[in-house]
């Protein structure tokens, strides 16, 4: 059963037809063609699909689209236009965080949400915020460094 759905994504209003229980991730990738957000595990356990809903990092693969109507959604395509997101992206490039790159959209989204809420995170804050984002290449050391650099404004 499809229904007309309107979402606010990256400040723009998007209208489309979809089943109300379709995961937001599918809407983003398959209906709206916004493929920056990645599909990893499909059960909210890897973090690749992380987006922001009202500024908080959530997993879009288990979030039905009907649950996010009327809420502000931000994706990796737009995160660079937020102050925290811009800092994270800059630090990411300068620290050469990325190896294969598959998880990085999710990592950047979680890191940006962390810095927006906790501008100067310590290691335990980084652990608590980033534990749900898995990197198969094992770039965790560089991720941690980049988050600290972004927080300090140095790079």
């Amino acid at each position: 059963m499809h229904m007309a759905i309107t979402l606010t994504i990256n400040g723009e209003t998007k209208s489309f037809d979809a089943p109300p229980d379709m995961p937001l991730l599918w809407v983003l990738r398959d209906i709206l063609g916004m493929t920056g957000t990645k599909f990893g595990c499909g059960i909210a356990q890897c973090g690749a699909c992380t987006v922001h809903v009202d500024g908080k990092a959530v997993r879009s693969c288990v979030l039905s689209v009907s649950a996010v109507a009327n809420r502000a959604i931000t994706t990796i395509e737009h995160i660079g236009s937020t102050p925290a997101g811009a800092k994270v992206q800059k630090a990411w490039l300068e620290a050469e965080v990325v190896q294969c790159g598959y998880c990085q959209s999710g990592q950047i989204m979680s890191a940006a949400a962390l810095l927006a809420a906790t501008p100067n995170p310590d290691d335990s804050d980084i652990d608590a915020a980033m534990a749900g984002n898995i990197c198969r290449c094992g770039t965790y050391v560089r991720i941690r460094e980049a988050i600290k650099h972004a927080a300090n404004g140095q790079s």
Partner: protein
Amino acid sequence: MSGKMRILTGIVVIAIVAVVSGVWIIRGPGPLDFAGGPKVALADYRAGKPTGVPAKLEKASLVERGEYLAKAADCMVCHTKPGEKDYSGGLGFKLPFGTLYSTNITPDKDTGIGNYSDQDFLNAVQRGKRHDGARLYPAMPYTSYTYMTDDDVLAVKAYLFSLPPVRAKVPENTLSFPFNQRWAMIFWSAVFNPDTRYRPDTSKSPEWNRGAYLAEALAHCGECHTPRNLGFALDNRKKFAGAITAGWRAFNISSDKATGLGNWSDADLISYLSLGHAPGHGSASGPMGEAVDHSFSQFAPEDIGSIVAYLRSVPPVASPDLPATTAPVAPASHKEGVTADARGKMLFAGACASCHGWSGESPVSPMATLTGTWAVNDPAATNVAQIVLSGTRRHTPDGALSMPAFGNAYTDDEIAAVANYVTARFGTKGSKLTAKDVAELREQTAE
């Protein structure tokens, strides 16, 4: 009479009195005895119509009326194995003394109930007697269904017989002696099955009587929510005080203000029953989730209202192991609040925090909010561990929200650690689950 005979007779009389009064004490009151008002036969009750279907279905066909009643009695959940055809049976109930399988109640003549006459069906549903004369085990809640009218039971039969027959032989039960002796259920039934139809209470409103009929005869709330006595029958002295069923805790639904439903608003109760969620009270999962999905969500609004009116009247019984108030929202920062159990915290950070938040108020949906739920405020953490093991899926008019099952992803030790962390952080008292406890919970859940 000689002296010896007199003594012997005396002993026999004392023994009979002891047995009868023992049985009497164990049996206790019936499910509706608390109401106390004068009861009349249904035919003599003029104030309203507690039985049958809601007004909008009054003129519907027998099969349609039967469908409503079959859903109200929630036949399907127990009589369907997940992934198999509806009503084709084979769901295993894991009991401490073996596994019991539900029967195929499709109209298949060989493996189902296709050969049942009306009287056969009435005997099964109201008296626990099978077509071949064998006795049913009370996993089939015939001590509740016995309160259904013949008309309503036969409407359910008409509905079941309108469905396609499914040829599906269910596995043999694996009960151990003496529980494999079906004939023994004759005595159990004689003591615990009142074998009587619903009798309206004239001191109560028509709405209450409808609610009582729905809750007792059809929805059989007490089968999970009322503790059991020595004879494994319902102990109505503690009516609706909560119990463990199929490895999940069915919480107190008496009118107790602290640990029951006494402080729930009508809107909360209506929302919980019809949608499986009430703000600040969590979401129905496990067996109650199934009851909402397949039964309560299909009820007419006035029937939900009647059940609420009835629940309000059930005397308060406290659950002494639950706190008087549920814990408030936890701090937003992971650093504040509970810091013990580093392993539980690590698991929570990786697997749970992105949906449930560090405060317990979900950034995703109110349905995933932990704050205020009994599950996290239960120091035994039964339902926290169960939902981590098996996940949940809530259907609503706007779609579905699901939590994945972690039972195959984490060890018993890890699940115990995360349950202990969750109850300590979001509840009033942290649980002390061990890996062994979690292994036992896995064992108890139905297949």
